[in-house]
């Protein structure tokens, strides 16, 4: 782990993008998230770390209301994006998810062409008036996801035929194509080899210029490499949240320290 790099990293203070207060999540009788408060900044990479089963994914899925698709899940509390309560009755979760893109643990390109994968969101939301506009959106998304050069000659080839790392970047392009404001990533590199991981991490760093990025990761090195802010979850509670450098070098909570030094798995 390159600790020196973390210490030197400058952290600009940004506006608050996502504000969560008193969030509770239940799966039936399981209390998966216990009273979590967190403010996530715009144009920042925020990492969620913690032992597996501690509720990182669950909390992430609250931010785009993906928990609504799980029958047994119940969410309480208040989550605001740009000051607007996303659990308000007026908010359409389907519309919200276009604004809050999500990238999953395992690359999941649709069994369609590369082009159609990226054009999926824009088509559903009617973002392009004609074919050439759609072409532009697709190209821009693929460029943003740093995969344009690799696929520009085979946009009609199936997306499932790409390598794992390329598939994951395609999924990022797909998410970026709907012009979201927030990008949620749930362990986006856990199914990738080290080289593909490095490419995706580099991409995440670039995405920070335009989006607020929240990334769940089980790798502390990764959190240290890509994030400016880190939140440590343990048994459904948010234990500690702060500057990444701070968390990794000088944690306040003993549980954070045990996790970082490898004593909690």
């Amino acid at each position, binding site marked *: 782990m390159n600790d020196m790099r973390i210490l030197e990293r400058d952290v600009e203070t940004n506006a608050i993008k996502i504000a969560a207060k008193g969030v509770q999540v239940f799966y039936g009788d399981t209390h998966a998230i216990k009273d979590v408060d967190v403010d996530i900044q715009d144009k920042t990479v925020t990492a969620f770390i913690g032992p597996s089963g501690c509720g990182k994914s669950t909390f992430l899925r609250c931010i785009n209301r*993906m928990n609504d698709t799980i029958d047994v899940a119940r969410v309480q509390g208040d989550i605001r994006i740009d000051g607007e309560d996303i659990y308000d009755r007026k908010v359409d979760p389907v519309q919200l998810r276009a*604004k809050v893109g*999500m990238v999953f643990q395992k690359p*999941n390109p*649709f*069994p369609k062409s590369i082009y159609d994968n990226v054009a999926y969101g824009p088509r559903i939301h009617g973002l392009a008036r004609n074919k050439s506009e759609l072409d532009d959106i697709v190209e821009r998304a693929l460029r943003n996801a740093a995969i344009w050069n690799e696929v520009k000659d085979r946009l009609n080839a199936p997306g*499932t035929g790409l390598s794992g790392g390329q598939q994951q970047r395609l999924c990022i392009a*797909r*998410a970026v194509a709907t012009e979201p404001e927030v990008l949620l990533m749930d362990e986006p590199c856990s199914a990738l080899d080290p080289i593909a991981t490095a490419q995706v991490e580099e991409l995440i760093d670039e995405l920070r210029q335009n989006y607020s990025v929240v990334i769940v990761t089980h790798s502390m090195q990764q959190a240290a490499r890509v994030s400016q802010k880190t939140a440590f979850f343990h048994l459904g509670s948010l234990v500690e949240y702060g500057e990444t450098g701070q968390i990794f070098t000088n944690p306040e909570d003993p549980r954070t320290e045990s996790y970082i030094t490898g004593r909690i798995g």
Partner: protein
Amino acid sequence: MALGLTGYVVFAVLLLTVGVFFMARGKARSSVGGDVRVLHSLPSYYGYNAAMFTAVPALGVMLIWMLAQPMMIENAVFKLIPDRIIEEGSSRGLVMSDVRRVAEGLDVAVAQGALTSDEAASIRSDSTDIRSLLGEVGVALGSTVDSEVLFAAQEYRNQSAGGLFWMSVIVMGLAIVGGSISISVTRAEFRARNVVERGALVLLILAASLAILTTVGIVLSMLFESINFFRLHSWTDFFFGSSWAPNFRGDSDLSILPLLWGTLYISLIALLVAVPIGLFAAIYLSEYASPKVRAAAKPLLEILAGIPTIVYGLFALLTVGPALVRIFGRGDDGLLGVEWMSGATAVLTAGLVMGIMLIPFVSSLSDDIINAVPQSLRDGSFGLGATHSETIRQVVLPAALPGIVGAVLLAASRAIGETMIVVLGAGAIAKFSLNPLEAMTTITTRIVSQLTGDTDFASPETLVAFALGLTLFVLTLGLNVLALYIVRKYREQYE
């Protein structure tokens, strides 16, 4: 008594098997002084091993012997029948069946005490009235018994008895030899477990090959009968002719095309009913239904699949057909005031009911296939802000499409081969027509009707059933292979 001997032999072999089992097990135990851990295998494996070597070769030889002996004896006795006694219009085979009957009659007579076995072997037809003698013990013969036939019958009995005797000796011998060898090899280091394992393997292979051989046998017998048919009837008429008009005085038109048309038309209607309904049901059950609804609805659909097709046939004939007539027929008394449909049997009747029959088939296959589409694809689509139905239409169904096509092909092959519904619901008129309210007939219906009633297996009108059956078999086999190929390809995609 002949059967008695065979029975005793089987009984003895089984008894010996049980005995040998316990002996081998006991020997295995005692050979290590009761410390079972020293044995290579558990003691009962030694028992199974010994039992296996006692029973299997003995009973196997017995089975083969019993299959082969009558054939060999018949061949021998066959030569004893002089050409002279084969009457005009009769054949050697018929005389041979007389011989067998007389032989059986003598057996019965001996069993009932009407004859001693010596008398049965030595009586002559010139001195005794065999026919009335056998009639008294309950074996009726069609005519008086020729002396040659009687002689042949006696020879038949003679050889059977001898054969049975030798069989018993050999079978018992094999059982004893097998048993004693396997007991003598029972030692601590003997790998009884592995030998028993082999035995189990052989048993399984036997079962598998039996299933395959039966299939091959069925196909071959259909093939031979079809070849017989094509010897009597031109294949061009069968495959390319235009009419189906069997005529038992000969000179029939026997073309498959009108029947194929009826079959395909009814199947098409059935698929038009079953595919949308089945598919929508599957989509509801796998995508929307709560676990409770699903748990209740799936078994109900499966009950539909368990109804015997004859019941569907009755449903077609008694409910659907008359209902359709009420709508499309009866002139001014009907619901539409038209006179398009005269009888309850029609393409539409059979097609609708067959469609209902196929709904659970399509829905349960599609349900499996839709469930096989990974959840991650749905999540990906939801994550991009797609609604549930957009996700289903644009991601789930396209991903499941190959599998669904396979399911539809399987359903089509069921529809084409379906018999009872069309026998009762479709009618019996072979013709080319586009009107679904007319009665038409199918390949399967014609197979049934050509083979029921008085049939002469030498006439093309009967043999055509086999040619029809074979064509149907090739058709459905082709569809099944194609469907399974597609489904398998689809499965690979997500593994």
